């Protein structure tokens, strides 16, 4: 995804009116794709998709089956499951990153998508942060403390690390609740193969 492209949201929903409504709400801020059932949803899914809004109860492939396939394909996208009933605590184990109970309000939908994109942003910041920390560790492991004290590169790295750490702590407000925590960890596991 380049800087200028809006994030891509894929809506998988069998009721056309409902899908259209979500699209109207989101299309100002995001590139929206729509699949009318599980099979169509999977066809539209590629690595450019950032967030999937997945209806749980659909004819044909169910939301749960689509989700399983998404996880098997190891795509980096975040999935919000849309359900008719409020799920219990066991949702954490089901492999989706957020859930929305029908009927959904516009504000709620926007908040969920924003939150899931923030998780992805947190992942990529963490990735950058790690790259800096690893460089620093390599210098620390190979140079003497006298050499480090004189190294401009080391000084610059150290400053960048401090800055990045504050960015991670502040900009995204940390990992506040259980859903965020699990969704972020799930992101780490998904990226293990990289």
């Amino acid at each position, binding site marked *: 995804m380049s800087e200028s492209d809006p994030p891509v949201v894929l809506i998988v929903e069998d009721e056309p009116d409902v899908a259209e409504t979500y699209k109207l709400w989101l299309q100002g801020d995001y590139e929206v794709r729509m699949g009318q059932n599980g099979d169509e949803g999977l066809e539209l899914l590629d690595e450019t998709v950032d967030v999937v809004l997945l209806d749980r109860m659909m004819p044909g492939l169910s939301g749960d089956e689509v989700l399983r396939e998404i996880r098997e394909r190891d795509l980096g996208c975040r999935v919000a499951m849309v359900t008719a009933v409020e799920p219990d*605590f066991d949702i*954490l*184990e089901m492999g989706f990153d957020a859930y929305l109970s029908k009927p959904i309000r516009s504000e709620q939908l926007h908040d969920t998508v924003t939150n899931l994109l923030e998780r992805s942003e947190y992942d990529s910041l*963490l*990735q950058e*942060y*790690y790259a800096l*920390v*690893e460089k*620093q*560790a*390599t210098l*620390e*492991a190979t140079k003497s403390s006298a050499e480090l004290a004189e190294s401009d590169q080391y000084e610059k790295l150290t400053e960048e*690390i401090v800055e990045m750490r504050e960015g*991670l*702590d502040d900009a995204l407000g*940390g*990992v*506040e*609740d*259980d859903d965020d*925590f*699990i969704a*972020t*960890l*799930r992101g*780490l*596991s998904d*990226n*293990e193969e990289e």
Partner: protein
Amino acid sequence: MYDLSSVLDFDALAEVRPGSSILVSGPAMTGKESLAYDILADGARDGDGAVVVTTGDKASSVVDEFRDRVPELQGAQLGVIDCRGEGGSDPEVIDGVSVHQVSSPGDLTGIGIGITKALEGLHDSGRERGRLALVSLSTMLTYTDKKTVFKFCHVLSSRLDAAGYIGVFTIDSGAHDQQTIQVIKQAFDGLIDIREADGGGRQVRVLGLANEPTDWKKI
């Protein structure tokens, strides 16, 4: 604030900020695990919650260890996440303590879910303070790469920070290269460094939790 100085006598440990994560680093057989358990047990005596993530000891041994250290321990005060992958995948209860089984020390999402449930259970029983120990990162590093472990530690620290807990994580400094240790250290607020002293015994110092690193002290 958490006072860890009764377990390990350093001024730097007398007022540890809620949300701090501490790495306990030292060679094998220098008592890192025991120190982590002591820190949790000391809090449990004062009513703090305790969460143990274990990659080596059986959940039942962890429960026994805590009963030995804190005879008055209430079952609801302790949660154990057993990541050895040898038990079943279902949660179970050992002697009143809820135990969550995880398939392997590399299953980060599973460990996270176990921790979430343990935190939830402690919160429900009215405990607002608590301490978590993860023993050990060295085992996790044999199941997954250092980058993933680093990121996991960072995310978990952030979660503990939000909960106002303190976290104690152990690593075997002799089992990894210098660079790995340097990387992992960066995910923590503080470090308790253990080494073998000349002529026997152990020496300890504390870094990152006060303005200056402490001197080595014999324990």
